[in-house]
Each structure stands twice: as C-alpha cells, then as structure tokens.
C-alpha cells in the first residue's frame, strides 16, 4: 500500500495549487502522522465561533448607514439633503432631512435590534458547553473554542456543535440516528455510519489512541454531498484508506437521537459548516408591480427635471432686465452678485430640483415596504389555509411578491405530492404476469399471513415459485426503509397485534414504505437491519437473514436503485427496482411482454409502477463489482460521475421478476382548484417525472383534461415515426386551423398537449443542420399558447426549470408560478416568478426554497384568487395614489413660480412640506393598502373569472397611470387657480376686492399656501375615501382621524410662537383663515370641484362599461340597502365643512 501513499504525495505536490484549493487535510486529535507517511502541514481554519450578526458595537453606525444608502432611493434623498445643506435652497434641509432621518433611524433601530438578538443567540451558541476528548479524558469547553481536528463527544439529544465525521458510537454497529429537522425540516431519523476501522473505539482512551488524517473537500453548501477519505495509521502497518461520504458526516444543527453517545472529529467549524454556508441569500425576485413602479418613477424623475429646467430657463428669460432681477426693494447680496451667471443658473436649477423633489416621496418606499411586510401576515393568519393534519398554516418566506400572486398567467405544477397526496398505497404486484392483490387494505395494519394473501397459488410450479420467492425478497431487501420499533407507550395503543414485533417504517420515499408495507400484507415482513444483516420474516414465520453488502442508491437520473446481498446460503444476489424504462433495456430474460402489458395497463389507471429485476452474481463478479464500487467511492474528484459509471456496469443482465403498482390518490379538491385556476385565465401545466400514461390519467382525474379535450401528443413515440419537424408543423396546423374557425363559432375546441422530456430537449436544442430549426421553439410556444392545458412528463428536474424559463422568456413575458413539494421541484420553484412549496412528505426542501409555502394544493386557490387579487389591487392603488397625491402636492408649487418671479418661493410652510407625506396623508393609504376589500372573499372564490380583471397588470398600465396623473394635474390646477382667484383682484380690476375677513385683515402668501394645502389634504384624503369599498371602523378612524389631526396640528403649529424657529411665519395664519367666511366657502367649493370628475368618471364607467368585478359588486349592492349610501355621502359632505 506504499503505492497509494506515494500516489497521494505525488498527486498532492504535482497537482499543485488547484488541488490544495479544493481539499483540506484534518489531523485527528492534532497528532502528526508518522513521518514516513506524509508531511505534517499545519493548517489554519476558522474557529467554531458562529457570527451571524452583521455589526459590532463600533462599526454599527458607519456600516449600517453605508448599507442603507446603497439603496438608490435613500441615496437620492441623501443627495437632495446635501444639496439643501450646501446651497441656498428654498426649503430648509429639515424638510428632507427629517423624513430621511426618520426612515433611516427606524430601519437602523429595527436592524440593530435584530442584530442584538443575533448577538445574543450567537453568544449562547458560542458559549454552549461541549465535551472534548483531550489526552484520553473528556474536557468540557465552550463550543466556540472547538477547532478542526478536535475529537468531540456528543450525547443523546444534543446538537452537533460543528460538522463532524463519526468515529464511533455507543451502538455496537457503528451507527447513530440523527434528525435534521432544523436543517431541512425532515423529521425522520436518519442513520449515519462510522468507518468500520474506527467503530470499535469505545472509550476516550481508545479514541485518543487513534492516529489518522482525514482528507476532504473544502466546505461547500450542499447538505447532501460530501466526499472525503480517512487514512488510518497503525503502528508498523500501512495506512488504511477508507472513503467518507455524506453518510459519515454529521451536520451542525442536527440532533443525535436514540444513541447514547458518539465520538466524532470536527472537520468544518464555525462559518465553514454546511449549515452556515446554507444561509446565504437567494437571488432577489422582483415583482411586476415593482417594475411598473420603477418605470413610473423614471417618468416622474423626467417630469421633475423638466420642471426644474423649464423654470430655470424661464427665470433667466424673465429677469433679463435688471429692474426685474434686482428692483430697488430687493437687492442681491454682494457675494451673490459676484457669482458667475452659470454657477448661479446651476444653483437655481438645483434649488428648483429641491423645491419639486417631493414629487418622489421618501415615504412611498417606506409605505410600500410596510404594506408588503404587514400585509403578508394575512396569509400566515389565514385559517382557511391551515392544515389540521400537518398542524401548519401557510408560510411567507418573502413578502416582496405578494402582489405577484394576483398576476399569475402560467401555473406549473408538479404531480406527485402536489396534485396527488403522495400517500402511497400498495395496490398490486405482478410476478411474471400473475397478479397478486392484498386481500384488504388496512392502512399498514398487520394481518395474519394466511388471510392477507388472496391469489397466491398454494402449489405453484418450481420455476414460478422460485421467481415469486425472489420477487418478494427483492422488495423486502431492495429499499432504504428503516424499521423503527414502537415506543412502549405506543405499543400499548397499537399493541393489539399480539406477540408480533410491532414496528413502523420510515423512509424518505413514501413509495418504498408502501411497498414494504404491501409486502408485509403479502406475508413477507421486513424486520430490521442488524449488524449489516437484513432480517425478513417470511410467510412461514421463519426469519431469513441476508447480509447487506452494498446499496446502490436511487437517483433521479438512473431512476432505479439496487442492493447487493449475500443470502444465508452464500449466494450473491443483486436486486434492482426502478422505472420500467430504466429496467427493460437491461433485462436479458424473464417474461418481459406480460409484465410490460401489465405495467402499461396499470399506468393508464393512474398507478405508479415499478419493475423489479435481479441478477445473481458469482463470487468473482461480486469481487469485481466490489472493486469498482470502492474505487469510485474512494475517488475524491468526480466521485458522482465515477459512481454512476460503476452503477452502470454493475446493473445489467437482469432477469425480470415482475412489477408493482402503487396508487397515489389525488389531493382533495385538486380538481376543483385546477378548474378554478383555468377559469381565472391561468394556464396550468403539469410537469412530472412520471410516465406519460400515469400522468395523463392524473390529468384526467384532476380535470386538467376533459372528455372534450383533444389531446395533441408530442412524444418520443411519435417523433420516432415522423420527424420532429413534421410533427410540430402538423400540430401547429391543427391548432391554428381551429383558431381561424373559432373566430366564427363561439364554442371553442380546447386542446391539451402532452410532451415528454426527450422530445422537449429535442425541441429546445438548437440544431445546426437546418436554418429553420431555430423556429421550433417558436412553433412549440405557439402550440402551447393555444392549448388550455399542457402535460410534460418524464421530466428531469432541470428540464422543469427550462420549461419555466422558456415561457418566462416568450414574447408576452407572462408571470409564471411554480408549485411543487420535492427536492426535484426546487429548480423550477427558484426559476419561476413566484415559487410555491407544498409542505409535503418529501422533506421540506421545496418549502424552504419557495417564496410561499402552503400545506396543500387546494390552498393555492385562495392564495391566488383571494389573497393575490387583494394584494394586487391594494398595491396598485397604493402606487397610483402616491404618485397622484404628490402631483397634487407639488404642481401648485410649480404654478406658483410663475407668480413669484421664478424665485423658488415655496408655496407651503416647511412643516407642511415635511409632514404632508409623513403624517397627513400617509396612514389612510397604508391602511387602505392593508385592509381594502373591494369585493368579498366568498365572491372571489365563487367566481374565478374576476381574476381576469386584474390580469396583466391591469391597474398599473400606462393609460391608468396617465388618468391618475391627469387627475392630479387637474386637481392641482383647481387648488392653485381657485385660491388665486380668491386672492387676486386684477381680473376684476373695476370692482374686485381682496378677500377679507370679518375683521377685515389682510392675508399674505402664507395664508395663500395654507388655503391651497388645506384643500389639498382634504381632497386627497376624500379621494381615497371615495375609492374605499370596505369601510371598517378602522377606516373611519384613520381617515377622519388624519383629517382631524391635520386641523389640530395646524391650529397648534400656528397657535404658539415656537422659540426654536427663527421665523414665525405661520403664527395664527390657520386660525385667521378659518375665521374668514369666504375661505370656508372656497375650501368646500374647491374640494367639490376636485372630486367631481373622478366621481363622474367612476359612475359612467360603472354604468356603461362595467367590468366583471363591478358587476359582482353591484350584484351584492342590490341586496344591501341603498339608502345608507346616500346618507353617508351627504354626511361626508357635511364633514368637509368642519
């Protein structure tokens, strides 16, 4: 074995840097290897301190500020603030500084608090005691002091402090049970193994005597992948090298179960652990609403800049004559006069920018974020989406996409576990074409062997008997199911099964459990795995023992798994089970035709089928296989690939035994949900790895395909007969002809498309030989567009993502949603605009990677039709309203410039400028965007077509945006010119008179501004009130409350000489205004004029061109008393005049 060491050394030093980068050598117990073996290279690794906090006490302020100002909006406002500080601007820096400060502080406090919690959590973890083995004794130390190479002892129910390689456990067989609930949510107990050479160490002293190194890859985040090698040095012996895989690696965060204690060595510590590496950010998804919001922002930015430019130009045109620029009563200062005109013009431009910058308010971002954050609670709170059985409700992993739920056009759904229950039930098996059906289906209850077998012939022929025996044994042996003995308490509950060892099965694959339980019902009970022997209780109540030699694990590429066992008679047997397509090509003998017929028949019935085959190995063959496997397992590089090759070599020349059929029932209301989604205008695609027949059967059952649906097939079978080209053109002709006909006929023939993975990759593959082939993709998309439902079967996980990507990139850029429950759906979930995970049985990977997680498929209906719809209309109104109210706010200021010599004189007082967006008009819209319900939940559920009303970003399209902006401009003009005519007397030169009060006092510019502002606040708030369809007491409270707050604030603000202000311009202005009769009349008049067009537009649209939603609303209103509406409208009129 010198050779291998030499090879190691050579490869280490010759491979050079690269090799170093992706592997690390760990010296167990920090003991140097024997000098002969290899050079001891001390390496530095991070200690086991977990740092999840982002800040420390002294870097918090700079780092947090930096983080916050990296956001473009914050940076924009900072820029405005700095401009205000540097140059002489019309408004004081406070107006933009205060809101910015407010936003920054609130965010900083929130982040600081979270960071403090993280610090606390870090601390408690880092100081958590750990038992470490040093010099043969157990030493208690803090978790953070652990280093790579330390040997650790972990007791039952303790959590692993870092990533460890299992050396030995208190269980004799070198295994330990672990639950990884906190890592991936899977609650099942997983078995981990120690290397046989170390599993004998039972005491600290023994462990301490171990002399070994571990070579392993550098840390990587994949929880389920690990390659490494342990070299054990023994005195005067060659070092032994053993492969290490994921089954040897205990992950930080997992918990030890059912095992007294273990010894293990730390290999990844601190931030290198897989758990820490896994908590890195996913790519951010952006919603369509956010995109339109940004587009609108750009428009407003252009408006802002053009406003500033126009005003600057006009200013200099206007003040061309010195009498206008500097009349005798209004001289410039010397410094100002000396400044160059270009600099002055630039300063003026900046000053105008500052004056109008409120058109893009800070508070919009804050409000949108708050709306999304708070709004997402409604999903988690929804008890309709709570599943009693699982004990979970819906989960929101990101609230950025709430409104996207209302915009979905394509739904991509997985089949198994999503449409179906993934609650497998063994239906039948067939051995050489003879069918066996368990007599009664009793949910895994053990029945007596005799009664459970229905059709097994008592006197079968020898050949058949042999196959039957092999078949049942194969199913009992070829799996990774764990048998778990019942706890004593439970056994009392279930303990009616007298005498029999009671146990239940745990596996990550429900199919396997179903099969093993099915076998139990047919008389072959898998008992347990003990000392690498599998024990089976056969029909005759005899225990058979097979030595488990190798497990060739299942993977989705091979789609099969195998075990190699040695029977008690010394025979080597390889059992394999897998999908029919992956087994049949490897079969050399057996009754293939009969089995295939049965499999196909079962598939049509929607059952999941597996084929079982075996191969008996001669000792020489076994040796060879063994060699191949261990070679591949030992490889540090490309282990996956080499393993696959090895498997490919071993799994061949099968003898077919038979097939099994397992039923996976549809989830409750799956059909109803799919029907609703289709009615709502969404296209539902099923993407599954299953066989075409099985998948199609499920599709019929779930009403994705109806009896009337014409099925178009685009499968390998067809493309073998015809070229892909012809098939595609055929299909597209069919579809298009139909479309041209349907222009005349109302009844539309709907099409369903079935495509399989092989054909799909052919379609997507850009083939070089013909120039027209690039159009395959287009033709395919064209066909898909015209199909109401598409079924993609035989899909690899990555192909699922490809399909989603294909649709996403098609020219309409539809919004896609992917829903799935298993690890194979993760890529699709990440790819789609909205990813939804089902908290199903296949672990929690999908749910973890999703944006939203729901317990059942049926909850998708409420999620999209109700929550999505609500979120969309809420946020759409929020965005439009925010732009509208700021146009109303700023445009009068723009107009005022024409009357004050373009001098950047603000119309409103500083306090009003500052607080308009922060407090006077912020709460009503926030509340609206949280609880508005324009239509009832029941109505939305009952009539899915309402979803079409908001489809394709209907409320944020340019015409709508233009309407809102025009409304804003109109209102702004009304405010300004209304006040202008009230104040101005030049138009009525002969008989005009300035508005005076009963006390005949004069009003100045601040009263003018206050009048405009008062009308503004009332109009904008009442406009929202008109848009509100759902008036709860909170709405009343907030809307009337915020108006009242404005009045009270104004009274207070003008009622006191504020000592900290250097001006008292607002002193008594508001009171004086209110004491004037014409001001009251003017305010009421202007509010009425401003609201009038919107009301008229609403009423006309509703009467003449009602949308489906509006019809539904009116329908409801027929039931309610109309009088109340009138009453409140008049009431709100009287409200205007308080």
């Amino acid at each position, binding site marked *: 074995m010198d050779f291998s060491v030499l090879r190691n050394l050579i490869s280490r030093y010759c491979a050079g840097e690269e090799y170093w980068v992706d592997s690390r050598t760990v010296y167990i117990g920090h003991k140097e290897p024997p000098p002969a073996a290899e050079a001891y290279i001390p390496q530095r690794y991070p200690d086991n301190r977990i740092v999840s906090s982002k800040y420390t006490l002294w870097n918090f302020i700079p780092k947090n500020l930096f983080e916050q100002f990296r956001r473009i909006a914050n940076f924009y406002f900072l820029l405005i603030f700095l401009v205000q500080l540097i140059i002489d601007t019309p408004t004081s820096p406070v107006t933009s500084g205060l809101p910015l400060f407010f936003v920054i502080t609130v965010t900083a406090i929130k982040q600081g608090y979270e960071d403090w919690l993280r610090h606390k959590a870090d601390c408690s973890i880092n100081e958590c005691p750990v038992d470490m083995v040093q010099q043969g004794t157990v030493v208690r130390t803090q978790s953070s002091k652990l280093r790579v190479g330390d040997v650790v002892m972990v007791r039952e129910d303790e959590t692993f402090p870092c990533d460890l390689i299992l050396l030995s456990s208190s269980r004799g067989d070198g295994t330990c049970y672990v639950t990884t609930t*906190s890592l991936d949510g899977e609650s099942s107990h997983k078995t981990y193994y120690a290397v046989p050479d170390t599993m004998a160490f039972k005491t600290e002293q023994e462990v301490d005597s171990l002399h070994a190194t571990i070579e392993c890859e550098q840390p990587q985040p994949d929880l389920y992948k690990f390659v490494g090698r342990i070299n054990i040095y023994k005195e005067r012996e060659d070092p032994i090298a053993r492969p290490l895989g994921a089954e040897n690696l205990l992950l930080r965060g997992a918990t030890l179960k059912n095992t007294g204690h273990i010894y293990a060595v730390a290999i990844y510590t601190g931030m290198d652990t897989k758990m820490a590496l896994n908590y890195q950010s996913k790519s951010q998804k952006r919603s369509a609403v956010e995109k339109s919001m940004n587009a609108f922002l750009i428009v407003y930015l252009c408006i802002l800049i053009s406003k500033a430019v126009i005003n600057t130009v006009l200013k200099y045109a206007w003040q061309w004559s010195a009498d206008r620029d500097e009349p005798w009563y209004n001289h410039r200062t010397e410094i100002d006069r000396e400044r160059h005109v270009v600099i002055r013009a630039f300063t003026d431009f900046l000053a105008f920018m500052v004056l109008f910058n409120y058109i893009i308010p800070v508070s919009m971002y804050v409000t949108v974020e*708050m709306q999304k954050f708070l709004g997402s609670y409604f999903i*988690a709170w929804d*008890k309709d989406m709570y599943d009693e059985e699982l004990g979970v409700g819906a989960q929101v992993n990101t609230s950025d996409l709430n409104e996207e739920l209302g915009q979905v056009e394509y739904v991509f759904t997985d089949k198994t576990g999503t449409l179906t229950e993934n609650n497998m039930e063994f239906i039948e098996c067939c051995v050489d074409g003879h069918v066996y059906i368990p007599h009664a289906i009793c949910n895994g209850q053990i029945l007596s062997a005799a009664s459970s077998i229905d059709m097994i012939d008592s006197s079968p022929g020898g050949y058949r008997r042999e196959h039957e025996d092999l078949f049942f044994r194969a199913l009992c042996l070829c799996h990774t199911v764990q048998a778990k003995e019942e706890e004593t308490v439970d056994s009392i509950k279930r303990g009616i099964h007298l005498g029999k060892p009671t146990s239940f099965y745990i596996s990550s694959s429900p199919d396997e459990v179903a099969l093993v339980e099915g076998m139990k019902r047919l008389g072959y009970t898998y008992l347990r795995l003990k000392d690498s022997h599998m024990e089976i209780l056969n029909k005759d109540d005899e225990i058979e023992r097979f030595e488990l030699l190798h497990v060739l694990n299942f993977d989705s590429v091979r789609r099969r798994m195998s075990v190699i066992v040695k029977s008690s008679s010394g025979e080597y047997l390889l059992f394999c089970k897998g999908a029919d397509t992956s087994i049949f090509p490897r079969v050399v003998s057996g009754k293939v035709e009969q089995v295939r017929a049965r499999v196909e028949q079962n598939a049509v019935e929607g059952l999941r089928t597996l084929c079982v085959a075996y191969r008996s190995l001669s000792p020489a063959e076994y040796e060879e296989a063994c060699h191949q496997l261990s070679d591949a397992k030992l490889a540090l590089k490309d282990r996956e690939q080499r393993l696959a090759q090895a498997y490919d070599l071993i799994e061949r020349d099968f003898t077919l035994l038979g097939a099994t059929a397992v039923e996976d029932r549809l989830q409750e209301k799956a059909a109803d949900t799919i029907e609703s989604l289709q009615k709502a205008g969404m296209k539902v695609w099923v993407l599954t790895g299953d066989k075409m027949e099985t998948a199609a059967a499920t599709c019929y059952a779930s009403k994705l395909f109806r009896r009337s649906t014409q099925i178009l097939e685009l499968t390998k079978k067809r493309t073998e007969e015809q070229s892909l080209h012809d098939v595609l053109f055929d299909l597209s002709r069919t579809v298009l002809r139909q479309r041209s006909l349907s222009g005349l006929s109302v009844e539309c023939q709907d099409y369903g498309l079935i495509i399989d993975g092989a054909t799909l990759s052919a379609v997507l593959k850009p083939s070089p030989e013909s120039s027209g082939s690039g159009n395959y993709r287009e033709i395919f998309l064209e066909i898909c567009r015209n199909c109401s439902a598409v079924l993609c079967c035989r899909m690899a996980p990555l192909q699922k993502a490809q399909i989603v990507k294909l649709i996403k990139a098609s020219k309409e850029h539809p919004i896609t949603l992917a829903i799935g429950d298993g690890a194979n759906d993760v890529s699709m979930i990440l790819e789609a605009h909205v990813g939804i995970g089902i908290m199903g049985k296949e672990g929690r990977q999908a749910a973890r990677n999703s944006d939203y997680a729901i317990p059942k498929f049926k909850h998708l209906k409420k999620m999209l039709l109700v929550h999505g719809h609500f979120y969309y209309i809420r946020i759409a109104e929020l965005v439009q309203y925010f732009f509208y109210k700021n146009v109303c706010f700023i445009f009068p200021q723009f107009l005022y410039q024409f009357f004050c010599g373009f001098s*950047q*004189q603000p119309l409103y007082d500083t306090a009003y400028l500052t607080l308009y967006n922060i407090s006077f008009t912020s709460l009503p819209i926030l509340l609206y965007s949280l609880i508005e319900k324009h239509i009832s939940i029941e109505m939305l559920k009952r009539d899915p077509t309402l979803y079409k009303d908001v489809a394709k970003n209907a409320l944020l399209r340019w015409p709508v945006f233009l309407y809102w902006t025009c409304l804003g401009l109109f209102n702004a003009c009304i405010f300004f010119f209304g006040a202008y005519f009230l104040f101005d007397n030049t138009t009525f030169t002969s008989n005009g008179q300035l508005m005076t009060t009963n006390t005949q006092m004069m009003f100045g510019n601040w009263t003018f501004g206050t009048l405009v502002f008062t009308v503004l606040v009332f109009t904008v708030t009442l406009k929202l009130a008109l848009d509100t369809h759902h008036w709860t007491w909170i709405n009343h409270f907030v809307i009337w409350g915020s108006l009242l707050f404005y009045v009270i604030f104004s009274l207070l603000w003008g009622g006191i000489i504020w000592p900290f202000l250097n001006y008292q311009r607002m002193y008594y202005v508001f009171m004086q205004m209110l004491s004037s009769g014409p001001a009251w009349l003017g305010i009421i008049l202007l509010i009425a004029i401003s609201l009038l067009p919107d009301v008229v537009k*609403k009423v006309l649209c509703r*009467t003449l061109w009602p949308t489906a939603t509006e*019809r539904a609303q009116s329908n409801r209103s027929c039931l309610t008393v109309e009088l109340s*509406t009138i009453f409140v409208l008049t009431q709100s009129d009287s409200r205007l005049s308080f």
Partner: protein
Amino acid sequence: MMASSYNAKEEDRHQPGATGHVGSGTMTNKMPDNTAFKQQRLPAWQPILTAGTVLPAFFVIGLLFIPIGVGLFVTSNNIKEFEIDYTGVDMSSPCYSCSQSYSWNNTKSCTCSVPFSLDQPFESNVFMYYGLSNFYQNHRRYVKSRDDSQLNGDKTSLQSPSKECEPYRSSDKPIAPCGAIANSLFNDTLELYYIDPNGSRTAIPLVKKGIAWWTDKHVKFRNPSGNNNLTVVFQGTSKPVNWRKPVFELDPSDSDNNGFINEDFIVWMRTAALPTFRKLYRIIQKKPNNMTPTLPRGEYILEVTYNYPVRSFDGRKRMILSAISWMGGKNPFLGIAYITVGSVCFCLGLVLLSIHYRYGKRNSADISS
C-alpha cells in the same frame, strides 16, 4: 437553539424587503387565531358609487350650491368699491411730476392732489387700501429677508440681526428693522378730503389703528422692552437705508403705534401672495348716530405725499375704497363659481338619471340572468 439563532439571519436576507419569517418558528404549529381582523372579515359598510347612489348627492349639491352662489353673487355686487390709480404715468395725471422727479435722497417731499368723485354714497364702515402692482413681495429673496425675533423685541437680534437680512443687515450699525421687507416699507401718505358743494375742503378722519391682525400687533411684534423711551431702546441701531425716519419715529404721537408695533409697518410686513396686491391702509368709520353716509356722494380730493417709487419696475399705485359685507369684501368669483358648479352638478344629475334609467336596468338584468 441553533435554528432560532439563524432565523434572525434568515429574515435578514430578505432585506431590504423588510420581511419576516411569518410562518416559521412558533407560528407554524399554531392554529391561526380566528379573529375577524386576522381573517379579514371585519364588519364593514361597503358603499359603491353607482348612478343610483350618486344621483341624489348630485341633486343635493346642485340645490345647495346654486342658492349659495346666488346669495354670494348678489351680496358681492351690492358691495361698493372705488379704485383710483395715482401712479402718474400719464402726462395729464396730477402726480406725473412727482413720479418723474423722484429720487431717494430728496428730503423735500413731493405732494400731489388727485380729484375724484363718488357716484354713490358709501354706507357703514369704509376701508381704504393702497394697492401695488408688479411688486414682487412674494419673491423668495424678499420673503425671507426679515428677522422675526428682532421684530419680537429680542435684544440680541436687535444688535446682531439674522443673516437672512443681507444685504439690508447693517450699515455701519445694525439696522432695525432689518431686511428687504422692512426697508421697502410703503411710505406714501394718503389723505382724503371731501369737497363740499360750497367749495370748502373737509378732511375725512382716517383711523390708523385696528388694521393689523390682533395677534401680530400684540404677540408677534413687540418693541424691545426695558425702557418706555423708544429712542433709548433703539440706540446703537440705524434706520433702514430707504427710510426717512428711524423706526421709533413712525408714529411719535401714539406710543402704542410706534416702533415695531406700528400697524402700517405690521401690515406691510405680511408679505402678499401675488405680485398685484392691496393692503389695508385706513378705516373710515361710520359716524355714530348720524344718518348721513360715511362717504356721501360728491367730489373728493386724494392728497398724496408721493414718496414711493414704482416706475422703475413698471409698477402701479392705487387707492381703493371699499365697503364690506357678511362675507367679507367684494368677490364675484366665489358667487359665480358656486352657481356654475351647482348647475353643472344638477345637469350631471339629470344626465346620470337618464343613463341610470337606460343602462342601469340592463345591468341588473344581466346580473340576475
């Protein structure tokens, strides 16, 4: 423990979306509360703006606004107002020479008499205004050129006025009151004389107090305290450059109207909203228990001490006499606007009514079918 420590981090990665792991941790295992708020089922009133519901509101608004508008319009028309431009732009105008020969250094004041006649008598109190045109009192540089704390009687501000007052802040000594607004105080003196039919002139008594806001006069504006003798108080300050007399001589006859609390000064300091404006100058009070009108019809003379130059910026100066009603001064705009809006609402109401009858039925039929 480990899981919880990472929850915070997990939340953070969704920053800046400021999202939380709503469902994770404790939430998942609990049945959500069945409260009306959490289930979005709060009882609510759900109004819908349909033709049927809005119609009455339109008619009500129409019926309310039209009478109000008519009332306002009639009242406004009954208010008498008289306006005379005395700038002296024309050669023929009596103030032409004064407007031409004007210079700031001229210590001798120029006076001119503008004759006018009133066709109708003014009953009750009459308000006398001066009006300026093309005068940008709302220019930003101008508006902020004042020191409110100086005007409020603050001693330190008196000696060192705010920087905002530049370039009217100091001329070797600090200026009181500082700033462009104060510097450009309107300083024409206007006097009214009634020409009796027999040719004799009777001066009309003009009341110069009660023209400023009460709060301005008593709270916002205050003379520096310490001494009743304003001359002493304002020692160490100089008068604004354009003023002829220092602030403590604005009204030597009345200590309650002198210094910063001079009402003409206070009225001027309230900057106008628009470049054409008028400001209250004097009040002509109704003669007590006298049946004769305040200003009987007949010939009058306006005596102007012409100090204030407006020709340089194309300005105009006017004198306005106006009566007042319950709704303030003359303002036909409000009345006309009310009538217009009222009738528009009424018409819309009619239009909506017809639409409602033609289409409303159809819609409800659609729904029921």
